[in-house]
Structure formats: C-alpha cells, structure tokens
C-alpha cells in the first residue's frame, strides 16, 4: 500500500464531498468520489499497479470498516424489537424478488440481443 495512492483516494473523496455539498446533491461524497475515480480510469484506459494494490489492501478488510457503525444499532434496538415482523418480511420478500427480477431481465435481454448465454464475448479478456 503506497502513501501516494492513499493520498489519491483521499483527494477523490474530498472532491466528491465538495461537489456533493457544493451542488447540494443527495449523493454521499465518497460515492461521488468513487464515480469520479471510475470515470478517470475509463478515460485513462489503464489501471496503475500501485492503485490496484492500495485499493485491494483496503478492500480486503472492507467488512471490518463497518463494524463500528454497525454497533450503533444498540441505540436503535427498540426499532428492531418493535418492528421485527415487517422488517424480516421485507428482507426475505425483497431479496428473493430482487434476485429473480435481475436474473430474469438479464436472461431475457441476452436472448433478445442474441448474446451467447455461456459467457463467450462477455467473459474473455
């Protein structure tokens, strides 16, 4: 993980925060930063090795990073306790429905536009 690329990530986050707050967008600053970095990479047409390693190192333990915020649920345990029925029903129905809809749309579109169902052009490279 190099300091230079950590700095770039922070610069993109900062840019994202400034744009998000400045234009009063309902988007989180880091997400705007992510979109900017993605566009930057598409225009550049190449991924620097150092950035790949730095991002990989940071994302390897991504799930650790949301533990502190997750613990904050202890302040809202009453919501989970009082509303566990609508919450669990919503989670189960919505998860199954989302899997079904996105898979069916993908299969349907592939058939419509004649793209090879086994992967073909979409998996090489």
């Amino acid at each position, binding site marked *: 993980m190099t300091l230079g690329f950590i700095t770039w*990530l922070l610069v*993109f*986050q900062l840019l994202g925060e400034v744009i998000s707050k400045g234009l009063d967008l309902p*988007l*989180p600053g*880091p*997400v705007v*930063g992510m*979109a900017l*970095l*993605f566009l930057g*990479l*598409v225009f550049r047409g190449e*991924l620097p090795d150092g950035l*790949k390693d730095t*991002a*990989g190192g*940071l*994302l390897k333990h991504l*799930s*650790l*990073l*949301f*533990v*502190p*915020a*997750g*613990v*904050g*649920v*202890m302040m*809202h345990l009453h*919501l*989970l306790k009082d*509303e566990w029925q*609508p*919450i669990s*029903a*919503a*989670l*189960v*129905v*919505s*998860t*199954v*429905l*989302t*899997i*079904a809809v*996105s*898979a*069916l*749309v993908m*299969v349907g579109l*592939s058939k419509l536009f004649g793209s090879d*169902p086994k*992967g073909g*052009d979409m*998996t*090489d490279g």
Partner: protein
Amino acid sequence: MDDGLYQIWVYLSTTPLLGLTVTLVAYQTGMWIYTRAGLHPLLNPVLIAVVLLVGLLMVTGTEYRTYFDGAQFVHFMLGPATVALAVPLYQQFQKVRRSFALILVAVLSGSATAALSAIGVAWALGASRETLLSLAPKSVTAPIAMGIAEATGGVPSLTAVLVILTGILGAVLGTWTLNALRIKDWRARGLAMGTASHGIGTARALQVNEVAGAFASLAMGLNGLATAILLPLILGLIF
C-alpha cells in the same frame, strides 16, 4: 472489582485505545469462527463482531459514544474504501464492455425492485418511516448504503445491520431461487446475487463459479452507484 483494577478500567474507558482494540479483537474472533465453519454465510464475521461488541458494551454499561471515540479510527477508513470500490468496478467493466448496456438495464431493474419491494412490504405491515428509509438501500454494499441512509434520512447503523442480514439471506436463498426459476446462465446468476446481496452474495457466487463471481462483483458496484443516484428520486416521489 478491587480498587486498583477499577482505577485502570476508569482510565482505559476514557482513551480511544480500548474501543479500537476491542473492535479488532471482535472482528478477528468473527473471522476465526467464520473460517472454522467453512465460510458458512449464516456465521457472518461482521454480524458476530457486532453482536459481541453490543453485548460487551451492555454488560459493562459503556455508552456507544465512548466506544465510538476509539472505533472512529476504523470508521474513518470507510470513505477512502468507498472511493477504492471504483477499482474493482473498473476491472470488471473492462471485461464486459461490449455487453455493458444489457448489464446496466438488468442491474437497474434489480435496484428498483430491491428498494420498492422492501419499502412496499414493510409499509404494508406497518413499519415506521425511520425503518422504511433505513430499509430502502439494504441491497447495496454497506459503506455506500450507510451513506445513502444518511443522505435520505434513514438510520445508518440500522441500515448497516439490515445490509448484512440481506447479504446473508441472499447467500442462503439465492441458489434455491435461481434453481426454481431454471436460470442456468452463470452471468445472470452472478449478476442477480451481486445486485440483491452485495459483497456477501458476491463471495457466495465466487465460491460456485468464476464467471458468476465476476458478474456479481460488477453488479454490486453498479448497484451501489445506481441506488445512490435513483433512491433519492424514488423516495422523493413516495414520501
């Protein structure tokens, strides 16, 4: 507790060191159990860590604020990590450039289904506004979902827990749902897992098939972006 020990406790509970250390220890414990159990989705390491920490804070009568003073050093890295999600997104994008439009439409339909069906079901069963807003981004990867919840008036920490539960549900129910629908295309199967249940679904897809894993990873990144942009508009229409 004898007086000497109590003095040490009083001192430690006011420094950031303790909150930071227990966070790492709890996470490592979660990872250890998860690995020992052969990466079973029900034993999600984050969920284990959160349960352990909430239990510890409650038993010791520690306030969340006090804990967070230490844990915020871990929390801070969420921002740069979210920006770093652009890297895997770009890597997957390179591989599927020619079919990108199809993928985008499929992910967008999944994104809208996830938010609308969660809000609809919870609303019909009488959930509060706070819960509805926290539920809406639950299919998105946690760092982005928490940011969305914060921007749209939800409770970010509740969203974090709902995101993890959604991931676990997707990993457990995904194969069954896709088999019931007779979906054999690995691209569609992966895309569905990544769209509906982010990183946890992606990890599950990767265990099964490499193509599915790649599509899950791409779908997870795209759904994060799509939901961040679309959800405020959808919520604006509903509420």
